[in-house]
């Protein structure tokens, strides 16, 4: 008989389950799944090991990063924070999406110069740093002249990621990271919360680990894009994943096909992604002398300034609605922020509706390209909605659109859909569980209901608090949540709340200045 043991792949064998225990030790039991409030011994009975940590952040993306950055600057040690995530770096998810939607590192984002996820003060701003790095006055001049004489200045994607990486190391963020998938967060009898983490296979002896914490912060991003039903249906029925695509997924093959042979492309949507896709198509066309034809369908064709009253008029034209950033700028600290903060219920929803809607920034280079396209008749914007998609000969797609002028049919080589919708928060398991068992609720826009302090309403477990920030909280007292600055503003509100509770030191003028000085020197904290 062989004496040595054979190491088989997969998780190590769980210890023998005692009688009358869960089918598998260290996993969630039916009892745990069904109760809303967990006691320490229920978790112990299930054999789930418990780790105590005061503050847990779920998500690990830019939202978690910014919040942890804030708390670290407020003096919280890394031992008091755990970030439960599956991402390698906080910007991983964001970078993936920007890359596939045609904003690689060297292209510019749609974000203000003073929105610096690596710097809670916003000083020096990205423009100033770029000016210092490139030893040129251009960015400074640009920022001075914006937006009247120039477009809004925006940083390059690479600058944002690189600066985040520096801060990532400076605050010792990797020390707080725990890899795994969070399954649920439940309230604890006696205060605080249990966050259940599923570590990667083989990383831990049990299937789950519970983090017992007083404060929980959820910043899991949006559950994903929801491709429009006609796109999904086309893929499922015809198993053609390459011709009808969503701009937020890799779709390089379409550009490759256009390099190879002239073709017509239909672009649907009027947001920034559509602008970037158009820029890519037109840049390729110019650089390689292609004969691409671009059809651009808008569901709502904006022809000029539009708005409910003289105080709220947004620019528009040629189908587009123009707005510098995802939201009117004053949501990040000006009039709109103050206004929304005071509203409740339907009034708030209405205001969101007024400044919502798909829009794109006005950029001179884009305008020039489109003007040329219209003049030379290879760019055709029109109003229409796709009514049917069917495969055509030679790998083409037959598209039927309903337009104000009646139905139109085109044969194109590809349809690029720039209108993916974000999925409902319930699609995310953690949120679904919180809605069912955690006491969370929905706000006027159907997303997660949070207070002004970003505490999730209804989930309090004294003396603990559960916070949420990011796109899941859209529709609350603060608009603009799914932006860099929005995440920082949320982080500030959360840190203020935690300061009141005594978890972190207040960031008064002196402390703030000294911390800024440490940042400027790159000193690790």
């Amino acid at each position, binding site marked *: 008989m062989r004496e040595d043991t054979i190491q088989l792949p997969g998780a190590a064998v769980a210890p023998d389950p005692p009688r009358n225990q869960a089918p598998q030790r260290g996993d969630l039991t*039916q009892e745990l799944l069904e109760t809303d409030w967990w006691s320490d011994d229920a978790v112990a009975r299930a054999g789930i090991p418990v780790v105590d940590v005061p503050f847990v952040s779920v998500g690990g993306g830019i939202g978690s990063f910014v919040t942890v950055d804030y708390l670290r600057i407020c003096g919280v040690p890394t031992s008091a924070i755990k970030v439960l995530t599956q991402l390698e770096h906080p910007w991983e998810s964001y970078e993936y999406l920007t890359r596939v939607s045609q904003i690689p590192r060297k292209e510019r984002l749609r974000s203000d110069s003073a929105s610096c996820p690596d710097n809670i003060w916003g000083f020096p701003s990205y423009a100033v740093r770029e000016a210092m790095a490139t030893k040129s006055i251009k960015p400074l001049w640009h920022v001075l002249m914006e937006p009247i004489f120039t477009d809004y200045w925006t940083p390059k994607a690479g600058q944002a990621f690189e600066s985040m990486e520096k801060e990532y190391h400076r605050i010792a963020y990797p020390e707080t990271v725990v890899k795994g998938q969070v399954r649920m967060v439940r309230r604890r009898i006696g205060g605080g919360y249990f966050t259940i983490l599923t570590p990667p296979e083989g990383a831990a002896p049990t299937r789950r680990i519970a983090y017992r914490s007083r404060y929980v912060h959820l910043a899991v991003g949006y559950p994903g894009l929801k491709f429009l039903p006609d796109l999904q249906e086309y893929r499922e029925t015809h198993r053609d994943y390459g011709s009808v695509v969503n701009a*937020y997924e890799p779709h390089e093959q379409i550009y490759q096909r256009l390099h190879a042979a002239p073709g017509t492309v239909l672009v649907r949507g009027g947001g920034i992604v559509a602008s970037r896709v158009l820029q890519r198509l037109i840049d390729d066309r110019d650089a390689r002398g292609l004969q691409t034809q671009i059809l651009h369908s808008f569901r709502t064709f904006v022809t000029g300034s539009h708005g409910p009253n003289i105080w709220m008029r947004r620019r528009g034209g040629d189908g587009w609605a123009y707005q510098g950033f995802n939201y009117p700028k004053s949501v990040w600290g000006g009039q709109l922020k103050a206004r929304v903060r005071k509203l409740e219920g339907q009034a708030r929803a209405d205001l969101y509706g007024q400044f919502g809607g798909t829009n794109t920034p006005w950029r001179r280079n884009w305008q020039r390209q489109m003007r040329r396209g219209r003049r030379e008749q290879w760019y055709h914007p029109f109003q229409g909605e796709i009514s049917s998609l069917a495969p055509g000969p030679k790998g083409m797609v037959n598209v039927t659109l309903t337009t104000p002028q009646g139905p139109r049919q085109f044969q194109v080589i590809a349809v690029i859909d720039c209108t993916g919708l974000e999925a409902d928060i319930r699609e995310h398991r953690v949120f679904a569980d919180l809605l069912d068992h955690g006491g969370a609720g929905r706000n006027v826009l159907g997303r997660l209901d949070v207070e002004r302090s970003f505490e999730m309403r209804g989930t309090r477990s004294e003396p603990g608090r559960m916070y949420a920030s990011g796109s899941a909280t859209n529709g609350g007292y603060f608009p603009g949540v799914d932006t860099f600055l929005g995440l920082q503003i949320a982080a500030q509100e959360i840190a203020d709340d935690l300061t009141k509770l005594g978890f972190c030191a207040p960031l008064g003028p002196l402390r703030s200045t000294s911390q800024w000085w440490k940042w400027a020197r790159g000193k690790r904290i």
Partner: protein
Amino acid sequence: MGFDVQRAVVVAGDGVVARFPGVLCVARCPDPGPLRHLLELCEETSGDSPGRTLAKRLASWLAGPDAPDEELVFGTVAAAGEQLAVFLAGPVSVEVAGSGLALSGTDAASWTDRLLPLPDSPVVLALAGVAPRPEVAIDVLDLRGGAVPGAGVVLLNGPAGGEQAHPLAERGSRTVVKRPPPEKRKTGEQRVEAPRRRPEMVAPAPPVESWQNEPLEPSVPEGFSADEWFSKESGGPSAPDGSDTRTPPEALPRIDPLTDPGHGHGNGVNGLNGVHGLNGVNGTHGGSNGSGASNASNGVGHTLGAEAPPLANSGRHAVLAESLPKINGSAVPEQQSAEPVEQTPPEWAPAEQIPEQIPEPVGAPGLDAETELAEIPEASSVASPPRAPRRAEAILGVAPAEPVRAPLEDGNPVGARGAVAAPESPNGLDPNGLDSGAVRDDQQARGHLCARGHLNDPRSHFCVLCGIRMNERTGVLVVGQRPPLGLLVFDDGATYTVDAEYLVGRMPEADTRVRSGALRSIVVEDRSGAVSRVHAEIRINGWDVLITDSGSRNGTFIAGPSEPGWTPLPPGRPRRMVPGTRVRMGGRTFVFESPSGVR
């Protein structure tokens, strides 16, 4: 099907015996690495009828670049539909007791790969030189799943827990009977498997019930001697070629515990020759049983029958008999006399009948018959859902496994890796391919389901069909239809969807693989004539797309997404293509793109 129902008795030794759904494996290797690989292979392909797939995977592994050295000897027996797929490498052998069929890995230069008809009699898969010995409590032994030390395994036909004579015991060979196998299974595997197997083992409720109503007793009565028992079982140590443990004298017909009228062991075994369909699982044949059994009993005479005092068996057969409801008391005593027994339709006798049916002549003391006739704890009966009873439970008189709980929402992957992507190995063959367990024959692959139920590459962040983020799912690998993995866009605009494998060249139809339909063809014309007739192959391994140069004259060149220059592709070595990979052959190029975003 029946494969998983069958009982597997492990023979002690210095190797490893492993069982997975549909697969039984015996192996030995001083180095655990190849062993591990082998077991992973078996496990990935396990499932319903994995025989052919497993054979192909094993063959390609042994023939491939990372084949194990000679030190690894192994043999697998796997279900392949209505047949049994046998794969032997090295000094390992497979014997089908009673049929004379014996295969050995040493007969082949490379390996032995055969399909056997599903045998009725026990199948012995063992390392060379391993002689199974009869053991005392042989009926309790059963390896359900997992890997345990051992050098051989006996697959006993008939439902698990069925009363069967040990095939080797028939021949008077010795089997080392282990303690009830420590089922070292992966966490949660058993639980996950059990529900899955359950439906397969569904019997009409009555047979199961009565089976569990058997009066069984765990202990071996005193005075019982294994040898005696086995000799009787087998009709004596002098059973033909009893000394040769490798060759069953003749085919041992499958024993149907529920209909075996209780012939002498050999008889009993043979007796059920005609009643294949009658096993614990589908004992639905009515009157035919009787006749079948009679035939069977006739068959008895032909087989070992020589000295087949039913002794040890009798009790067992009595037990069997009791499961035949319509067997009248008289029928059973007749069984004891080893005469042909009329089998009556299998409505199962109530347990009480049994004691009556134990005739004195049975003689052999401490027959497990008696032991078996001890009252069976009621607890072991019907409370559980209809599944074939496990022999171990019935005999030992313990309560059966805990009643099935609904599996927790996220069950452990059935022994598979979780969502963590495996690193790419240098020769381009991604270990992930193994994890994903892709089957090249069809478009099935193992991946993760998104929240909406679409199958995706386990490494992808977003679902390729609906866009929802994939991080939501835990690492349960499921088998399903794989979506297309990407596109090949040629420099003339031609686009090919990668949901099948291709042969690229000037004249790919010349190749048999294209003609037979195994590969699709992509015709690439090049004025300069630099493209060979068969230039390269595009293959799919799991969720990866691989390109292999087929020994073309001018070579194939590849460039990664951000690489500026071309690197030549060594012929015959597959290289994984990531989205954005460009390939040049002659003067033509194409690029591979994929919506999954997995790099």
